[in-house]
């Protein structure tokens, strides 16, 4: 209890921080206001994009300044928000949730990549969304500003209420931007699906906040950690409602970060414009769940089964979505499933108590997955919406596509965990910790998944970027009615051989190179000193160490002896083991999808031909029928219940009870309605009558009634 407790007490005694840090929040808000102004002024230029990029860059610079001046956890009070106090003595209660920021190194880590990537991706979008200038352009950038503001609230808030506000805010921004092409039914359906799935998770988070407030009497992080560190809450009963907290928090995190059972919205969310997929649905928003668990790590340890549950859910999600990604043909969808899978890795990391590993993987993943999405977007943009990897090949040899192909290769290497890339180090931390903390089953499953990841990642790259040159333009294109990321390629005919792909211009190339450099450099923090003996993970680990996620470095569950892998420290052994898995995956992909492309189709045909194995490719291509299962077991029953209620409503409520808003209130209303007859005299009589009644009551009846009422009111707590 020593080091953790003193550390947490230190977190609780936070000093006041610099007020200018609030500008990290205000800049996106200013950008939103300006976008609103541009929309009122009907600006038809790229001004909204430059406004947003500028404001986000300023927010990033503010974050950097905050990082440079950072020395210890601080609370930055911006202004009072909720500040309710009541009762006195033992009955005293309060509900305090001010508009304040809680800045520790975990906050800074997250904000650095959120604002940094946000700026770069907004710059990318300024070119990507060009065909919409004057139409949805302002709406898009307003949505991005809302997102950045909400995400900053989520990460920087000093209490759970502000976090929840941000949580809902990013959900709203995500809904807004997925449904950007609102004339397209599939985009609208995807937006709705994301919204509903997230609501389920949000219910969990809301309940968790409520229970935390009930049991610990505060929702402010600093106070909360102090209460938990002191252990004083154990005396105040609570029981099941305390044990429920970590599981409810988990549910919230699963919804936002697309884990089983709430993951199905994320692949569909790719209906939004690609920069949105990169920013919100790969790099930042979906990591909010991991952030929540890291931030609330002391709370997650209130029940001993909570973290193992997180580990297993994460592992299952990782492996399930990796198998789905194996069999998809839409490259953006493969990246989407891969995101779900990588998020599973992060959750498994939190579950096996390496918050540093999870945070590091979030950090590296944010870069390399952004690269991958943005390259997919560039390809889609250039090939008129074509995303099918069977219809694209060897684009590296086309003029102007070098940058895209090379950056994609680097992204793929990181994702596949190729030795010495950033993804390799971050993934290894999670894998090694799984063995160290004795979850070797989790470790082996994740290793296997890492092999699958390497395979499906390079399946995309070998198919699309190299090999013989061959491409077909996308089929869903032209005009707003279809909407899908195709941008006025009306001059290109279909299949007439005259299709010329648009190579990306400077903004896209610049952003791709910048983020790729980031993805490569993200390996460096691993070698920076962590400031503590025997702790792997370098700079990121030190950032995570300094925060509420610290306990994860040691673990509250007694681990008698460190687990071994092949007789060695897993952290050392993993360098070779995971590299081997990754290389095998890449080699298989090379064999099936570059050297011998026929073999892949032959293999699939063979599997399909054999009745015993036919189910495997079919099920994987159909995403294990999860959507269908949900349809049958969740949507259909709800539909039936809904219609049953509607029927009951119509038969009984409408039939018997007039219109369904409740019979009694209306009946009472009708009873009094004749009084409201519009005749002046009768109103006067009623008023006088009411007046007389009250006076009679007070003068004649009250003397008898008073003792009784006094008793009754005393029974309910006194009369005021």
């Amino acid at each position: 209890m020593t080091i953790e407790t003193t550390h947490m007490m230190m977190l609780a005694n936070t000093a006041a921080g610099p007020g200018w840090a609030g500008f990290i929040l205000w800049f996106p808000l200013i950008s939103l206001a300006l976008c609103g102004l541009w929309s009122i002024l009907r600006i038809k230029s790229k001004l909204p994009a430059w406004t947003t990029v500028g404001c986000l860059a300023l927010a990033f610079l503010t974050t950097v300044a905050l990082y440079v001046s950072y020395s210890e956890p601080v609370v930055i009070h911006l202004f009072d928000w909720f500040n309710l106090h009541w009762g006195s003595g033992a009955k005293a209660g309060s509900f305090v949730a001010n508009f304040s920021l809680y800045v520790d190194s975990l906050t800074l880590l997250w904000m650095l990549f959120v604002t940094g990537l946000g700026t770069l991706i907004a710059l990318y979008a300024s070119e990507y969304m060009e065909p919409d200038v004057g139409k949805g352009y302002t709406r898009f950038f307003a949505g991005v500003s809302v997102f950045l503001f909400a995400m900053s609230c989520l990460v920087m808030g000093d209490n759970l209420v502000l976090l929840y506000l941000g949580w809902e805010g990013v959900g709203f921004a995500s809904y807004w931007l997925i449904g950007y092409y609102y004339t397209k039914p599939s985009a609208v359906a995807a937006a709705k699906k994301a919204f509903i799935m997230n609501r389920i998770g949000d219910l969990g988070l809301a309940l968790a906040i409520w229970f935390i407030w009930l049991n610990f009497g505060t929702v402010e992080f600093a106070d909360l950690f102090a209460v938990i560190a002191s252990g004083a809450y154990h005396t105040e009963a609570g029981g099941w409602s305390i044990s429920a907290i970590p599981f409810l928090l988990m549910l919230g995190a699963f919804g936002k970060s697309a884990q089983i059972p709430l993951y199905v919205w994320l692949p569909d969310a790719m209906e939004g414009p690609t920069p949105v997929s990169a920013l919100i649905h790969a790099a930042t928003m979906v990591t909010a769940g991991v952030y929540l668990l890291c931030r609330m790590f002391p709370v997650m340890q209130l029940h001993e089964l909570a973290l193992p549950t997180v580990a297993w859910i994460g592992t299952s999600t990782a492996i399930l979505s990796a198998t789905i990604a194996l069999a998809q043909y839409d490259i953006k969808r493969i990246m989407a499933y891969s995101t779900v899978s990588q998020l599973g890795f992060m959750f498994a990391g939190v579950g096996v108590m390496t918050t540093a590993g999870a945070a590091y993987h979030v950090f590296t993943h944010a870069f390399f997955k952004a690269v991958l999405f943005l390259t997919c977007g560039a390809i889609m943009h250039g090939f008129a919406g074509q995303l099918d990897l069977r219809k694209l090949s060897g684009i590296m040899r086309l003029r102007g596509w070098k940058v895209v192909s090379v950056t994609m290769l680097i992204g793929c290497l990181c994702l596949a965990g190729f030795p010495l890339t950033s993804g390799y180090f971050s993934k290894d931390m999670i894998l090694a910790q799984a063995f160290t903390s004795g979850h070797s089953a989790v470790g082996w499953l994740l290793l296997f998944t890492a092999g699958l990841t390497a395979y499906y990642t390079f399946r995309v790259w070998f198919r699309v970027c190299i090999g013989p040159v061959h491409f077909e333009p996308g089929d869903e294109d032209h005009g707003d009615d279809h909407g899908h990321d195709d941008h006025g390629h009306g001059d290109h005919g279909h299949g007439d051989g005259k299709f010329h792909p648009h190579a990306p211009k400077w903004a896209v190339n610049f952003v791709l190179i910048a983020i790729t450099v980031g993805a490569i450099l993200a390996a460096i923090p691993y070698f920076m000193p962590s400031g503590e003996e025997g702790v792997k993970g370098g700079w990121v680990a030190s950032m995570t160490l300094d925060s509420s996620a610290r306990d994860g470095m040691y673990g509250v569950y007694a681990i008698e002896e460190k687990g071994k892998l092949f007789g060695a420290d897993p952290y050392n052994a993993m360098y070779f083991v995971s590299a081997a898995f990754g290389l095998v995956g890449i080699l298989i992909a090379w064999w099936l999808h570059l050297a011998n492309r026929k073999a892949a189709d032959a293999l699939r045909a063979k599997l399909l031909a054999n009745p015993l194995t036919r189910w495997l490719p079919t099920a994987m291509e159909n995403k294990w029928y999860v959507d269908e299962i949900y349809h049958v077991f969740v949507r259909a029953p709800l539909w039936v219940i809904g219609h049953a209620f509607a029927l009951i409503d119509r038969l009984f409520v409408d039939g018997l009870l007039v219109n369904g808003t409740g019979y009694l209130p209306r009946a009472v209303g009708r009873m009094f309605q004749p009084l409201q007859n519009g005749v002046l005299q009768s109103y006067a009589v009623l008023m006088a009558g009411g007046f007389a009644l009250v006076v009679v009551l007070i003068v004649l009846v009250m003397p008898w009634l008073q003792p009784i009422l006094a008793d009754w009111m005393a029974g309910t707590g006194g009369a005021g």
Partner: protein
Amino acid sequence: MIEKLWFLIPEIILFIGVCVVSIMGLSHHRTWRSAVPGATIVFLIAAALATPFLYTPEKMEAAELLMPRVGWYFKVIVGFVSVLLALMCIGLIDRRYEAEVKAGRASFDPMRVNRGEFFIFFLLSVMGVNLICSANDLIWLFLALELVSLPTYVMVAMSRPSRKAQEAAVKYFFLGAMATGVFLYGFALLYGSTGTIVLTEMRDVFAAQVAEEGGVNLLGIVGMIVSLLGVAYKIAAAPMHFYVADVYEGAASAVSAFLAFVPKAAGFLGMILLLGTMGWAGHAGEGSTGLPMPIVTTLWMIAAITMTLGNVGALLQTSVKRMLAYSSVAHSGYMVIGLIAGPGLGINGVLFYLTAYGIMNTAAFAVLAGLERKKAEIETVDDLAGLRFKHPSMAIVMAISAASLLGVPPLLGFMGKLYIFVGGVETGHIPLVIIAGLNSAISAGYYLYLIGLPILSQPSPQAETITTGEARWPRLAGVIGAVLIIVLPVFTNYLYDATERSTEGYLDEQARQIGATDADEPDEPPDPALATRE
């Protein structure tokens, strides 16, 4: 006397406004006449902005008033909400006549223009509310309350050229006169009971009565109850609420919004002052710190009946104006809970709620005032159906204000209810708060309708013909109101602190009295809620 004049400077500014506006309204030049609303707004803002400079701590310290600081909050808030209300009134009066003059079909005749007069009455009524803040005797209070009401009778009649408006005005006037008689009678009884008309002296007399006789004498209690019932007319509470639906429906929407805020604010402030003479500090008998039991019971019944009748009444309406009228009744019921709860969360909650209600109710009425069909205001719920398709901003304003009136969490209305309900629970009136909660649930029946109808429904055939009004200002008022509903909750703590500071002196007096009359528990803080807030 000179100190009193100092606090009256905002009223004097408004009175200068009255003179200026009345002259402008009679000008031969159309530009001058059309500048009347603008001038009104300028004077309203000037009065509101002057207030914080006038209410300096030393001056408030020296003032011989029951609530020396309340004007500091009230005059500013009433001033700014009145700006929204004045925006709604632009283009309302003399529209047809001015159009004729402009087209050259009629020549200008000073006898036929009403615009100046309308805005004079507007300013006078607001001035009445401001005067109540400085009231320290029953005569002043009576005159100020009447100054609030009398202009509104005329405003209703003038507000639109239809017989309905005139009928409404007549009803409002006669019933109002009756209510005035009632509370004047109550004031007389209070004088009979205490032998003084000065509120601060009255407080000391009541305290002495409790100390000597163990309770306030019956005459005083009846006097207080009769006064409260009379003032209940201003706040549209049962049993004096019968006029509300007819009058609000008959008046133009802008004036209905005015009636729902200005007299209500005046009435609540008057009630707070009256109840303050009996205080929440030890007049109910041994060991208690509340109002006398009969008064609590009366207020309890008024609260319960008012909110229930308001909400069930609103359920049956097909006219949006009548719906909002009943909703105004219901909201008064909620606020009476705050009166019962007393200093601290209760009274501060009422002051907060008045602001919140003023803004959200004005926004809702602004939608009705800003749209028209065949040159007439829209009224029925069918008119609102599918508003989103033709007038998206108004549809959103309607949805936001209805959601706020319902008390949907992050919005302004929720914050108001939160303070009042917590105040009620705090002082042990749990059954009443439960009734209020049930009423909120009932009110969802019609507020959800107002939220859903403009956004989700398809437009009805008659909704197709709706156009925006000639003046864009009422719509602007709606949009400002909606923005405030969303933005103010973020600053709710500042607003609440302001209400708290404005009731400070009031509370100190209560504490002093407890020390004097209740020697048993001298250390007990007067209100736990406030005692714990530093």
